């Protein structure tokens, strides 16, 4: 009997605690009618932002606020939607956390800011600009739009991105590019590692540059590239048999190589100041 009473009290206490916790979280939803190539921006200091395409000409924002120390401000003007997490006095990384799920028309131009992230965008055709401090950035299945990413130390992963300009600047975050092709692919890193696995296709200009990080690029045997690789103080390896080309780069065994494959449709530069570079054959 005593045991049952104790168990009942325990159940009530757990239910009550759960209610208290659940009631601290608030869910809000916003809907905005927009037209072609709308501009949508979300600034969220703490918490994830996920963006995916919607079925109609509407922007739908679902926000889960972790406490009453943060509120969601929004502005909506003609074809522009701006969402901002407004931290109130006393907010910290936990109480100021907001989780956003955003649906936008596929051709919308999207700008996301978050210190902690993660940031995720998928299946869009418009321009995408992502910025985060330590945010994990994940972009996939983007076709046609320009992609600009800035992070300090957050890792960046791009998968199946094509037909647009890709520009990534990261101080210490590792950058992974899987099936990324386009007219321009530029990665600028200080100490992060850069890994590319793709075709270097599209007759584009590919530049992967880092100060101290390593670069690993994997390409198929049928890749059509004019490649130059150099590491001032690190080692350079190449799995391909390249046709020699006239270049100002002084080919130095172990530190630099240059040459062409196929019709040299794309220009590829792999440059690291002191990291290792490896051009691998898939």
């Amino acid at each position, binding site marked *: 009997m005593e045991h049952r009473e104790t168990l009942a009290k325990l159940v009530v206490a757990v239910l009550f605690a759960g209610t208290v916790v659940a009631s601290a979280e608030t869910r809000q939803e916003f809907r905005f009618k927009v037209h072609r190539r709308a501009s949508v921006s979300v600034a969220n200091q703490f918490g994830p932002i996920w963006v995916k395409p919607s079925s109609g000409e509407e922007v739908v924002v679902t926000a889960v606020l972790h406490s009453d120390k943060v509120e969601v401000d929004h502005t909506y003007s003609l074809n522009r939607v701006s969402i901002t997490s407004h931290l109130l006095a006393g907010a910290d990384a936990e109480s100021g956390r907001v989780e956003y799920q955003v649906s936008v028309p596929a051709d919308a131009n999207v700008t996301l800011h978050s210190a902690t992230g993660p940031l995720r965008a998928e299946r869009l055709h418009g321009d995408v600009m992502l910025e985060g401090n330590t945010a994990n950035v994940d972009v996939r299945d983007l076709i046609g739009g320009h992609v600009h990413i800035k992070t300090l130390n957050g890792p960046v992963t791009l998968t199946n991105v094509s037909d647009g300009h890709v520009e990534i600047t990261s101080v210490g975050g590792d950058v992974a590019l899987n099936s990324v092709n386009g007219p321009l692919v530029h990665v600028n890193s200080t100490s992060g590692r850069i890994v590319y696995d793709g075709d270097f296709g599209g007759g584009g200009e590919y530049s992967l540059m880092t*100060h101290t990080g390593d670069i690993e690029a994997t390409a198929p045997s049928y890749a059509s590239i004019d490649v130059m690789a150099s590491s001032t103080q690190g080692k350079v390896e190449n799995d391909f048999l390249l046709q020699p080309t006239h270049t100002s780069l002084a080919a130095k065994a172990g530190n630099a190589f240059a040459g062409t494959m196929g019709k040299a449709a794309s220009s590829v530069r792999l440059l690291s100041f002191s990291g290792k570079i490896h051009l691998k054959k898939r």
Partner: protein
Amino acid sequence: MTCEEFGRVLPELEGDHHNSEREEHLKTCSSCSGLVSDLNAISAEARLLVEDQEPSPRVWNSIAIALRQEGLIRDPEVPALLAGSRLRGWRLAWLRPVAIALVVGAALFLQLEHIPRGAPVARQAATSTPVLRTDGVGQDSAIDADEVQLLNLVSSRAPAMRAGYESDLRAVNAYIRDAETSVRNNPNDGIAQQYLMNAYEQRAMVYEMAMKRALP
């Protein structure tokens, strides 16, 4: 209409001279009318600029002189070989750090104006921990007093982020140091020049993100 209200509607003023309330305020307020005159002058000058024309070197020299007088920049150790570089890209490469230094200097000045009494004073904190940059090859790149101030501003609003920003600043300063050395040794090397531009772009990004954290 007060000056604050006028400032809020200022962006809508262009081409609109029929609002009597605004016109009345401009007649009575020399500060707001002076601001409108300056904006109109800038707008008129901007229309005259040809898109692909570069501002004359005198403009950049003036900016650099002002920054030196403010103590925001020092003369770089550039040998005579690099002076008057023929490569136009260099002008553009140096524009960014100068522009960023201007923005940072203005923001720091505005922020210090708003620091309440009793709050830690950034300048005192900066001088109490001297970490002057050393540019010698092979030496670790520290952060200078201006960057310490910036980090103190970040600390005042987001203390947990200071260590990360400091680490990033040291890393990009080391990148700049190595890139400058490379350019000094190989002034005609396009790759060395690209490294330097990339390094400055990295530092500009760190400054920009730090300022966003530091400003209310």
